[in-house]
């Protein structure tokens, strides 16, 4: 007996059904809120955006956010890769504990991160006082903002690079060694090219996360306009002052920068490096 619905039609319905669910989910959860924010921020052209940027400390906040996010991505690209390398390649006492500690930022609420950083590096703590004596102030400065961003984004790089590193075929490195290459040359010519897409991907995630970080920053930075006020906190201040249109305009600028950067890097850099 022939089935009521032919198998080909059933498969097609299933395919379209899954596709529709994915599109509706993505649209409702991501595209719709974004389009509402854009419409709110740029409903009357660029006037609202100009008004928001005329607020004291607006330009400085965006500049500080971009600079610290880039620094965070670069520093954590290096140290995140180093940590992933150490975790995958070396066997030592406490390796499991170190691996768990790397995931701490995922488990700790970002507001608590801010409180933690003030507790250890603030002027009331012995370490904070000692650092201040040495001329280094962490809490309520740009350095504090950078510390918070480094803390929050470290696992993004480590957990992106680590699986790629563990999947690397050791035969390639052995071949390099047997051909007379040293450790550094092997790392540079064999390991690093394979890791590069993962490092770039992890750093991009870190950058995007750093660009929008709010919880830890609001505590550690003291939010001083033109000094330590970052763009997400500035958006929060605008929203608190009942200026949702201006908040939406600055938020749109923030995620546009992030989106364009991520898209650009994904399209050109990762594809190019991946094909090599």
């Amino acid at each position, binding site marked *: 007996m022939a089935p009521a619905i032919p198998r080909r039609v059933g498969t097609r319905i299933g395919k379209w059904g899954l596709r529709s669910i994915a599109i509706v989910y993505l649209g409702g959860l991501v595209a719709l809120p974004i389009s509402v924010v854009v419409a709110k921020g740029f409903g009357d052209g660029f006037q609202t955006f100009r008004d928001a940027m005329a607020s004291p400390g607006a330009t400085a906040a965006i500049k500080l956010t971009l600079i610290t996010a880039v620094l965070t991505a670069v520093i954590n690209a290096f*140290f995140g890769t180093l940590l992933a390398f150490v975790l995958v390649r*070396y066997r*030592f006492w406490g390796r499991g504990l*170190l691996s768990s500690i*790397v995931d701490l930022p995922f488990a700790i609420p970002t507001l608590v991160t801010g409180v933690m*950083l003030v*507790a250890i590096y603030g002027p009331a703590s012995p370490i904070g006082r000692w650092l201040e004596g040495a001329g280094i102030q962490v809490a309520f400065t740009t350095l504090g903002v950078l510390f918070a961003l480094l803390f929050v984004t470290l696992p993004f790089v480590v957990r992106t690079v680590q699986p790629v590193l563990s999947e690397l075929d050791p035969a390639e490195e052995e071949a390099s060694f047997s051909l007379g290459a040293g*450790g550094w040359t092997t790392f540079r010519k064999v390991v690093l090219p394979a890791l590069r897409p993962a490092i770039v991907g992890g750093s991009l995630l870190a950058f995007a996360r750093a660009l929008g970080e709010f919880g830890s920053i609001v505590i550690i930075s003291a939010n001083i306009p033109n000094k330590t006020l970052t763009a997400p906190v500035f958006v929060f201040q605008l929203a608190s002052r009942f200026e949702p249109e201006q908040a939406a305009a600055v938020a749109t600028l923030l995620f546009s920068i992030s989106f364009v950067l991520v898209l650009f890097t994904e399209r050109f850099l990762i594809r190019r490096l991946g094909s090599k």
Partner: protein
Amino acid sequence: MSVTAGSLRHQVIKRRLLRGTLLALALFYVAVLLVGPVIGIGWKALGSGFGVVSETLQYQTFKPRPS
């Protein structure tokens, strides 16, 4: 023979040195960035004794600040 043994020993020392340096660098970064703040908040919370912690929790939960 002795030259090969010497160069082998040199390589082993170099590898151990590299391993030690990388490990120390990674541990230092994690200690300063992740472990330090966790110890800091614990020390801050418990530095004045458990009494302060329980008092704070009781105050926040059951005794709202009089206006």
